[in-house]
């Protein structure tokens, strides 16, 4: 960490969200290609970003999400009812066929044929209804999920910078990924299953009661409480056990991953044996957790099956006795047996779905929390657009701290004239970067004002302000995409000529000529295919193309080779021409070239003046210069300059 460690670094977030997919395996590529051949050209998105949307969609809830698609919702409900009714007709029709077609005295192939025909028709209708239902709920879920993704993401974009700390990055990622994905299963299948199984149970119970009240009562009372209790136990116990399994596997993978990353340390300290034993313990803990789930599954699966058989035994004893005493028809008894088999499944499935439902609800609550978070720096209602500015920046008695009780900068009074270059210097944590963040309105001052051409930053809209600002961060951040897209980040509609101009202005042509596909080369993994000097040039080109009136530049701390450094210096000269520029300088060599230098120390402006003036004054800057020059002289002597 160097000077300005608290600066504008965009360190990659480790383990953010977890992106396990390196691509589609070759054996599946053909199948995927075939799928993609069907994909239509999707219309351009119509969503537009508003910092302050006029009307909110209301509090997030499952119901509200679904109601957004009323036609699909009504269709799904209708289809579910049809399914529940038709899918359970079989045993009842079997009863009719037996009682009126197969028993001595009532033998009729016609009745059997008609019942079987009706059965077949029911199966077909049920299958068709299911097909339509899967398609409908699939579309409903996909639509709702898309809306939700866009809604949450748009809100994320509205939130202020203080929300995006490194610690929260992982949480934000999981809101947008796993929390939303949790709802997928519920919406696509879970709710429908819930309804189908619930209705099925109602239908079966009703049919049983119609056939014989006493037997129905006995069956329902015998099976339902025991099975429900068993299922509830299973749900609670397995959820607890699976949590341990998840922790276990996370521990195993973390241990493995660390051993691989730290392999040089491990090897040079002869730690292999210790680590092997440690890993064995970690894997063992994981195995114990797995064995616990095994216990639970081994009890529940065969247990419910056993319950089914015991139910059959009881039904045979009671129902058979009723048939023998002629209080029940043989057909009805057989139908009871058939329904009994169908009764067990819905209960088990309902319990499963309840898990999904709970997870979904938990996600909804978390997402609601995010959506109800207000940006700490927000536009005023109906904010004015900032007219084109000259670029005069004024700090008036500014006080600011990330924690309101601990000011980081205070009593800041400073005016930066249009087209002036001002360098902020000072030790780490002095507040240089903080001042820059106030200019871009990433934060609002606790007291005092920041003005641009006399306009209070708080009164103008974000977009109109930031379109006139250009920011070059310490660590240039590249987005996945082509070099061209990265340069044109601020103005995607920029013409080729403008793009070329920007590339030429910062001296990026050579680099682009060397890239395999020139401007269209895809940048990988946060730009690792470009050297850090090249990434910085690209960030400069990006700022150049934005045509900002004011440029805020956080100097890179990483070392560059001389050639890159020279190129960047040249690019800066061009970029700064005729623009107001605020440089957060980590090297005094950079600061020296500024029109004015502002020395920031302990949150206050200690000195302001040109390099020569400050040296002459013999204050802090002069002292810093003294320390630095020792090393710089040795280097420049060595480099033969």
């Amino acid at each position, binding site marked *: *960490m160097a000077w300005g460690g608290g600066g504008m670094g965009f360190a990659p977030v480790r383990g*953010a969200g977890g992106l*396990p*997919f390196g691509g589609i*395996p070759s054996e599946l590529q053909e*199948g995927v290609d075939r*799928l993609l051949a069907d994909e*239509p050209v999707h219309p351009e*998105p119509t969503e*537009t*970003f508003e910092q302050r949307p006029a009307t909110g969609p209301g509090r997030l809830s499952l119901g509200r999400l679904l109601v957004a698609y009323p036609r699909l919702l009504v269709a799904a409900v209708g289809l579910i009812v049809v399914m529940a009714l038709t899918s359970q007709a079989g045993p009842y029709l*079997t009863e009719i066929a037996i009682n009126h*077609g197969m028993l001595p005295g009532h033998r*009729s192939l016609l009745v*059997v044929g008609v019942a079987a025909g009706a*059965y077949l028709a029911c*199966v077909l209708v049920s*299958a068709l209804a299911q097909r339509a239902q*899967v398609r409908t*709920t699939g579309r409903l879920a996909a639509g709702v*999920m898309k809306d939700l993704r866009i809604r949450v*993401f748009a809100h994320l*974009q509205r939130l202020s*910078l203080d929300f*995006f700390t490194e610690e929260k*990055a992982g949480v934000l*990622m999981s809101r947008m990924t796993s929390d939303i*994905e949790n709802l997928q299963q519920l919406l*696509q299948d879970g709710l429908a299953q819930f309804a189908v199984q619930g209705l099925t149970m109602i239908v079966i119970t009703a049919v049983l009661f119609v056939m014989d009240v006493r037997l129905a009562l006995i069956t329902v009372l015998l099976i339902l409480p025991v099975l429900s209790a068993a299922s509830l136990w299973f749900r609670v116990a397995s959820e607890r056990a699976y949590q341990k399994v998840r922790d276990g596997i996370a521990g*195993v993978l973390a241990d493995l991953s*660390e*051993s691989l990353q730290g392999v040089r340390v*491990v090897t040079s*300290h*002869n*730690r292999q044996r*210790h680590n092997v034993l440690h*890993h*064995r313990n970690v*894997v063992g803990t994981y195995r114990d957790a*797995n064995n616990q789930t095994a216990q639970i599954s*081994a009890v529940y699966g*065969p*247990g419910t099956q056993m319950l089914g*058989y015991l139910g*059959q035994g009881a039904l*045979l004893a009671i129902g*058979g006795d009723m048939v023998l005493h002629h209080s029940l028809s043989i057909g009805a008894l057989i139908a009871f047996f058939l329904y009994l088999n169908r009764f067990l499944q819905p209960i088990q499935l309902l319990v499963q779905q309840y898990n999904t439902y709970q997870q979904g609800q938990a996600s909804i609550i978390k997402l609601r929390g995010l959506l109800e978070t207000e940006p700490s720096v927000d536009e005023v209602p109906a904010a004015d657009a900032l007219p084109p500015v000259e670029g005069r920046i004024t700090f008036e008695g500014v006080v600011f701290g990330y924690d309101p009780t601990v000011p980081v900068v205070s009593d800041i009074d400073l005016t930066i004239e249009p087209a002036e270059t001002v360098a902020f210097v000072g*030790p780490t944590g002095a507040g240089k970067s903080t001042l820059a963040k106030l200019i871009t309105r*990433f934060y609002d001052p606790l007291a005092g004002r920041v003005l641009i051409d006399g306009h209070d930053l708080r009164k103008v809209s974000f*977009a109109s302000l*930031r379109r006139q600002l250009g920011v070059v961060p310490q660590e240039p*951040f590249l987005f996945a995409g082509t070099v061209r897209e990265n340069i044109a980040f601020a103005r*995607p509609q920029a013409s080729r000529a403008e793009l070329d101009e920007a590339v030429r202005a910062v001296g990026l042509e050579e680099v682009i000529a060397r890239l395999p596909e020139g401007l269209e080369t895809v940048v990988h993994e946060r730009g690792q295919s470009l050297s850090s000097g090249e990434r910085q040039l690209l960030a400069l080109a990006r700022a150049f193309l*934005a045509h900002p009136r004011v440029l805020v530049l956080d100097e890179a701390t*990483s*070392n560059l080779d001389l050639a890159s*450094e020279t190129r960047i210096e040249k690019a800066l000269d061009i970029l700064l021409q005729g623009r107001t520029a605020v440089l957060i300088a980590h090297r005094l060599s950079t600061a020296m070239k500024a029109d004015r230098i502002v020395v920031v120390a302990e949150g206050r402006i200690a000195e302001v003046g040109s390099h020569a003036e400050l040296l002459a004054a013999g204050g802090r800057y002069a002292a810093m210069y003294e320390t630095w020059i020792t090393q710089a002289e040795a280097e420049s002597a*060595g480099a*033969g300059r």
Partner: protein
Amino acid sequence: MSLRQAEEAADPFTPVAEIPRYGAPRAGIDPDTSKSWLRRAMPVVKAHKLSFFLALGLSFAGLVLQVQIPNLLNKAIDTAIVAHRAPLSFYVYWILALGVVGGLAGYGSRLAIYKTAYNIEFDLRNIIYEHLSQMSFSFYDRVQSGQLISRANSDIRSVQMYMTFAPLILVQCSIAFVAFAFMLAISVPLAIVAMVTMPAVYLLSVKMRKSMFPVSWLIQARLADVATIVDENVSGVRVVKSFAAEDQQLKALARAATRLQWSYVKDADLRARFTPAVQNLSQIGLVLVLVFGGYMVIHGHLGLGAILAFNAYLLMMQVPFTMLGMLIMMSQRAAASADRIYEILDERSEIVDRPGAVDLVDCRGELRFEGVGFSYPGGERPRVLEGFDLTVAAGERVAIVGRTGSGKSTVARLLTRFYDVDEGAVRIDGHDVRDLTVRSLRANVGVVLDEPFLFSVSIRDNIAYGRPTASLEEVRRAARAANAEEFIEQLPEGYDTVVGERGYTLSGGQRQRIAIARALLVNPPVLILDDATSAIDVHVEQKIHEALSHLMQARTTLVVAHRLSTISLADRVVLLEGGRIVADGTHARLLESNPLYAEVLARSSAEESREHETRTA
């Protein structure tokens, strides 16, 4: 085993403070690469054969018992209820008894099969980890840790799943034959009619899985696209905000979300095509049973109970038939996974003890590189060192300076035998390092890396990494000498603070001091210091400088130097160029007499940071 015992059991060079609570893996993978993947994995399965066969046996027994039940119901209805030829209670008791015993057998078999599965997984994970821990650096240069982790994760799972659950599924399928036999025994023509739809169930479920696979991958890939956009907007939030690119990013996300939506709809359409068919085909079988069975009942060829029994049998058979399709997919995946795992296990470490290698004891720390030639393994790599000679007296401090690619860091890697020389020899106290045991060599040569790597354990455990049995007092002493005590004590939980937990991140300078404390605690007679390249705050630099001078006291030190301040700690500086030493002397003398030295010095810090980038990329 107590801690003490664990320590005694280890040899003096290998620090062990972990008490194993679990036994070692019982078997390894067959090293014969000519065998099929399944046969190579057999030793591991055989090691757990008792529970494995118990599971299969119990599963079979349980299913055989359960298959009787529909037949008993059939007979109960026909003989006891319709014909009054036998007491009903006889059948009731049998069904209850079979249900209970079958259930118990089911419980036992599941428990045994899960146990087998998890034991095999335990063995495989430990086998792989142990193997990885023995690999040499040339291996780690070639493979990416992400790939290794994914192999260790999903590949082990799919192999273990197949090896244990495939036989179980086969047992369940075999029950289908028993059930079919019962159906045949009741009525041959009805059995055949009832089974008509089963092959279709099987074929459809295979086809369904096949066509669902690509779409589920597509969904995963598109989920990853969405996640990438979110990730970039979270980590690149300042760029997005400062260029007012929110609208543009929202549109990018909307586009990705729309593509994802489409793939989910595609997925729903595919499921809509297959699921109703697979689920309802067995119902068609029931319709056929009703109509043909009814016909046979009317003509007196069949009892009423048969209709009930056939219903139950068809229901029983539906599951194995759909699972059979799964089995095929599982076997394909397992074979591919096993290949990937074996690829790792078939790698051999290049750095091993020679027969008759001796321990390095009472090391004085005299180093000698004699005509060393070296190029990194893997194809036609350029020579990094060529005719490299260097002698370092015991207790001397030597800085190695050179341009990018001059081989500075390589010198250090050869001394610790991270790699072996191609020509010449590296000697320590006169012994060729290849004649020494690797463990004893590394125990005597400490390394402080340029990018200090800390593990996500407590600060204390990080400092005691090379000597986990060290007392807290020893750890404190090392931290104090490394100028790290002050900031450690300011941490909320002091030495017990876990690195990386709850956002306790340490700065580069702090990490470096912990790495120095780590080396101090081991107190090796020879030390290699790969100087950090990143620019460091002046105050911090001062502190690290102090820590380093503590570290270098009374031991032979080889510094791969970038910064002037570090060079100034050395007694002697050697300049490396073209794989050999071109200048040797004190810093002041070289600066005066050698123009290349001055140039390299000015550039090295800049270039080294880039060299590092390419090395780790």
